[in-house]
């Protein structure tokens, strides 16, 4: 299991898609029980990183260990102890929420009876119990996201990858998911690896934050450290300073001429 409390360690991780570098020389260390936030602009390489670490994508070069397992040789072991919330929901349109979760449970080796209690309780926590027997095709995108959150946590993973967990959720649902993450991290020592571009979400739940731009890790530290070094009022301002989100009014309107 994790050596000296390190859950994820990457070593010069690189990924290129043809000519496009998606991840460049990534060196990361995420500690067990921590809540790591990976921030960055669109196309920075966040999703690519998560896919590599969860064993779905093969890196171009470099190495990494996840929960003590090498990503090159022990993918199935990694998959057994991690959960992944993908960026876009790939649900079965013709299954109900309960049936879909049963399916995910079975993929992870649980029989129906073994997963049923958890499914009911997770759906109740997420406020879906009144709709749990409706086909997923009729769910709103936020409801689908909730089902996916449930599917990610179902087999009680030690490490959870969340790719944009709250992008489709309403404020109260997003607060709920935040609380769920915090509670799981504190009570069960689950490690979270969260990709997001919502700085407020990262500020609220993460104890370590990395900012990645064009595949390169630019900044690493606790939210407070990052805010302090950037001399900003909050994480959003700090993010904008680091990423270079300064906007030029003139340029914004120039296209109308």
């Amino acid at each position, binding site marked *: 299991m994790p050596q000296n409390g390190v859950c994820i360690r990457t070593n010069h991780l690189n990924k290129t898609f043809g000519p496009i570098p998606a991840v460049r020389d990534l060196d990361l260390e995420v500690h067990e029980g921590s809540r790591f936030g990976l921030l960055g602009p669109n196309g920075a390489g966040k999703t690519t990183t998560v*896919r590599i670490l*969860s*064993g*779905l*994508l*093969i890196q171009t070069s470099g190495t990494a260990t996840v929960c003590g397992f090498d990503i090159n040789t022990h*993918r*199935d*072991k990694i*998959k*057994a102890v*991690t*959960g*992944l919330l*993908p*960026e*876009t*929901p*790939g*649900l*079965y*349109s*013709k*299954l*109900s929420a*309960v*049936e879909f979760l*049963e*399916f*995910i*449970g*079975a*993929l*992870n*080796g*649980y*029989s*129906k*009876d073994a997963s049923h209690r958890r499914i009911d309780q997770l759906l109740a926590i997420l406020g879906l119990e009144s709709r749990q*027997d*409706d*086909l997923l*095709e*009729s769910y*709103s995108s936020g409801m689908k996201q909730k089902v996916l959150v449930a*599917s990610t946590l179902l087999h009680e993973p030690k490490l959870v990858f969340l790719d944009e967990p709250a992008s489709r959720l309403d404020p109260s649902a997003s607060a709920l998911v935040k609380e769920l993450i915090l509670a799981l991290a504190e009570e069960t020592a689950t490690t979270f690896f969260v990709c997001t571009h919502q700085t407020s979400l990262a500020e609220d739940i993460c104890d370590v934050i990395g900012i990645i731009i064009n595949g390169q890790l630019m900044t690493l530290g606790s939210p407070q450290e990052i805010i302090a070094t950037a001399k900003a009022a909050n994480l959003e301002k700090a993010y904008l300073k680091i990423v270079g989100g300064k906007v030029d009014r003139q340029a914004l309107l120039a296209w109308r001429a």
Partner: protein
Amino acid sequence: MSHKWFAITKAEYFVLTSSLRPHRKIWMSILLIFGLIWAAYLAPLFIGVVVDFIMPLSEFRGLLLVMFPGLMRAVMFLLFMLLFLMPLSYALQEIKIGQWEILFSNNVRTRDILIGTFLGKIPIYGLIILFLAPPLISVFFLAFEVSLLGQALIYGTLLLMVVTTMWLSNFVTAMIQSKLGDSPRGDDLAKGLAMLLAVAITCPMYGLMFFAPQLSSILGMNVFLLFPFTWSADVITWLAVTFNGLGLAGIQIAAFQDILQLNLATSGLLMVAFSIACLGIGLAGADRVFTLRMGARTETITTIRSENLLLRGMRRVAPGAFGSLVVTAFKDFFRKVQNLSRIAYGVILAVIFPFLISTITFIDASGVDLAILVLMSGIGMTLIGGMTFAGTGFLESKNQLWIIQSAPRGGSRYIKARLALAFLVLLPLTLLPVLVTTVLNGLNFILFSGFFIFSYAIACGSAMFATGLTALNPNYDDTRSPEHMMNLMMSIMVPEFLMMSPMLLIVIGAIIDVPLNRILVNIFGVFGETSAWAITSAIPILVVSGLVVYLGTRSLGQPEY
């Protein structure tokens, strides 16, 4: 008013020709120029040579003249089906109301959409006609020695018919799309419908291939005077007759009058009136028919009630995680209309096939030829197994694949569950035709059992091939993708070929003087020669399909590069 319809035309044209994208203009010009040369010069030349090669035209001509009216109707019927149903089936596979919403929000009128999408299709379908029509028609141009004016008029008629049909098809497509809407359920229904339409297209094609004479005589019947394609066909016949260079006159023309019943003027008038009516209805109906209920997910919500007996039984038999996966696979499979229409297709095939086989095997009165029975049922079973499980309905999207892959050995568990589903579904689909065959041919119980095992093995082998191939080359829910075409074609053709491969080997063996037949019988012939046949026919499918499943499972479990 800018030319909104023109923008839509361009978009549609770009979509249809996207495979030629880098050099679209050059390719289309080359195709057009070559098409024109083909139509005006090469095709007649080529056909002339072929006809001369088969039989001098002078001996052949009489037959051609007699065949012409009926055959013309058959061809026009086929063309009508093709032009009407093909775009419809194609469009239904991907309902584009999302695009419509964008168009409407840009203040485009339905009429513009109709005209735009229609004109956008013309180049590509025009080219298809340009390449397909000349070889068919040239024979008759030669037979009747039709003058140039006549040829031009005939091509004009053909063009009118093609354009009218496409306009009609375009209108109906748009209407169905707007009715089904952009709801998952509508989308699902549309896919199911598209499958059935595809069958409706293929059946007449096969029919024409095998039963051309009968079909044309059927289509010669008077009922068909009610159908628009008959009118165009008859106009073409009349034009060929009128502008003939053979000196047909008087009595001969009266003979055509007897067959066709309507004269040139009447047929022509009907045809033109039909075209104008179509155009008018389309234009006038456009803005009235399409009052889109904006917004997706307006359909009723389906709530799942308790599980049925079958599913509960399955859970009883396999209580663990695997049972759960199979039950889920069942639910997913049977809730998609698309799959239901495949099953329906399978059942129809399963019932029709034994009848076909019996008519073939009873050619002489000496009783059933078991070997032929085995061979024919084998072909039928590869169709049923391959068709039902090829291509779609396996994975809905890439994102779904990510989810499955993020479970340990998720890909392999998933495929196993899918195979279990296929094997179970194929049980009744095999039992049905085998029972019918047994009854029709009066087989005894032992033959019935052997026959069933053989058919089931072939069907399962084909389904394994289809499943493994789809895992190797997933096309997700995209029935328009080249991957889907490939999966479907291969899943039908390869198992069929594999099943017949022992026979080919034996034939080759006979040629090079190796008595393969005797060797095989010696090895597998414990139950007699026919059983040796059956076993040797089943083995290649099972072996190759097993391999394909293995490869598919591996590729599904592999992370991406």
